């Protein structure tokens, strides 16, 4: 008897690798995704520690150094490595602080849109048919409007500000989460483990959040990554149109709008904010592709 139990104990240690390490193994295969992750990490670091990293206050104006070019061009100096804008503000400091706003927008929008969307999607998936239809029709209605237009009109009514822009973008991105969650819920709901949980006496909230939700997370996480980049792009677009963050906030889109009239005179005031948006969004999209491949082999594109 003692022998038998020790034999069992000896076979146990060859366990499967943990979920996280398995995910990392797949994720690591995609070189682009890993690169995206590194860039995103730098972006997050810069956003969090902007106050410590930035050489100057982003709104401080150096009147003697208006429109000074970057250091490698004639007339530039290391004092302002990426040059100054039309008001003599340091471009580098403004870009660093801009990362903070974009990061903030991304986080808030994704959290709000995903929370609302997942709860509504779970509801729709479990609810009686009439409520399901009602929720999905409502989402169809929101999806009928081009996202940027709807966000633009919402912000125009609520008043232009970064907070209102975030609310508008979160509202506009929400239907994607609802649809995704509902689709996976409907797929999972009929499976045996859900039935057995039901038989074991699990209540509806437990079924929704504890039994089913963890198994629907993969596509939702991928969607979260993708809408993080969409949120940054849309917030910048709203800022560019004058409906997002207001000057002198160093938000990247707003910076571009302010720099527009100088495009033919000072290329750096236009180039750098846009480049910052592009690199950030690209890194997040690369990461999103990697996440999709690692989390959900079914969705794998190639």
């Amino acid at each position, binding site marked *: 008897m003692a022998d038998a139990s020790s034999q069992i104990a000896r076979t146990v240690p060859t366990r499967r690798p943990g979920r996280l390490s398995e995910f990392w193994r797949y994720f690591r295969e995609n070189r682009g995704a890993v690169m995206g992750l590194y860039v995103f990490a730098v972006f997050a670091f810069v956003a969090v520690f902007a106050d410590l990293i930035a050489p100057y206050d982003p709104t401080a104006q150096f009147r003697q150094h208006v429109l000074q070019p970057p250091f490698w061009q004639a007339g530039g100096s290391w004092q302002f490595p990426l040059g100054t804008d039309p008001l003599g503000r340091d471009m580098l400091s403004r870009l660093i602080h801009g990362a903070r706003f974009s990061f903030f927008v991304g986080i808030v929008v994704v959290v709000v849109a995903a929370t609302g969307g997942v709860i509504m999607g779970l509801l729709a998936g479990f609810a009686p048919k009439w409520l399901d239809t009602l929720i999905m029709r409502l989402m169809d209605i929101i999806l*009928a*409007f081009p*996202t940027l237009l709807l966000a633009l009109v919402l912000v125009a009514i609520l008043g232009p500000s970064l907070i209102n822009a975030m609310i508008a973008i979160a509202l506009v991105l929400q239907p994607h989460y609802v649809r995704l969650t509902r689709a996976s819920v409907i797929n999972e709901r009929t499976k045996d483990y859900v039935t057995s949980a039901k038989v074991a006496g699990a209540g509806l909230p437990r079924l929704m959040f504890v039994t089913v939700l963890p198994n629907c997370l993969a596509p939702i996480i991928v969607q979260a990554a993708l809408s993080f980049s969409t949120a940054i*792009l849309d917030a910048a677009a709203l800022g560019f149109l004058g409906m997002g963050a207001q000057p002198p906030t160093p938000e990247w889109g707003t910076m*571009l709008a302010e720099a527009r009239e100088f*495009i033919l005179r000072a290329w750096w005031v*236009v180039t750098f904010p*846009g480049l910052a948006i592009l690199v950030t969004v690209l890194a997040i999209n690369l990461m999103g592709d990697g996440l999709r491949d690692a989390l959900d082999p079914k969705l794998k594109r*190639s």
Partner: protein
Amino acid sequence: MLRYILARLITFVPTFVGVTLISFAFIRVLPGDPIIVMAGERGMTQERYDELVQRFGFDQPLYLQFWDYLTGVVQGDLGRSFITNRPVWDEFFTLFPATLELSICAIIFATLIGLPAGVIAAVYRGKFFDRALMSTALVGYSMPIFWWALLLIIVFSGNLGWTPVSGRMSLMYFFDDVTGFMLIDSLLSGQAGAFTSAVQHLILPTIVLGTIPLAVIARQTRSAMLEVLSEDYIRTARAKGLRPARVNGLHALRNAMIPVVTVIGLSVGTLLAGAILTETIFSWPGIGKWMVDSIFRRDYPVVQGGLLLIALMVMIVNLTVDLLYGLINPKIRKR
């Protein structure tokens, strides 16, 4: 098939009413009195205010106001612009051809480059070509197009002086609107140089508006091709000794086209959202710029009507794509 069409049409009606309700609610329910905004800084007398309240029906209960609006919409009456006093419907359809011309050019540009790029990437899967094309596509997909537009202006209008910065036509030429499409009208006018001018004005906006659809089409074509290329009938075609070009071009591409066409159809929303930015930057007199201008002027009937018409257009195109898709692919109908 008939049942499928009917089912899709029936879901169209509540969505339509809902879209109308949202466009309506935006202006009437949310805080802010449109009439006071309309009066501007001059203000207005109480009598005039009361008169206007009555004229717009703001003294009636909300559900009656909505009913009036909805019946008006069905009859093509979207109210009049506060600024120009012209019917919103007329303004929309005067400007719409400009947006349509730009969108059509953008989607042609995106398809002409995106489709071959996707096919080539799929055929050379994993090779240098594939990697280069798909990296470029991802950059295009991540592009903030308002910045992209400024860069193109710096290079092509500023440094090289090849293209104009704004508008649809050089002021040197003047001719009647026949179709509303500058490319066609300029040819019809018979004036030398007018067509060239129209093309020059179109190039940059087309590239800007087409960039994201181009990336989406390239990525979608590649993945659809890869899926098809692993099918048995492709192996059979190869085993029969057909030339690779024939296998890839004829057998594979034709079957990979279904999802690609769907993506092209469904990019109408993306195009219209992109048109808002593109038209604003290039002063293109279409509905995107019209909406932005109206938002800034607080021209509520125009914002309301424009929002509704744009949403309707997206809905109709999506419905058409859905129906066509059901026609091509019987599996979809059962859902």
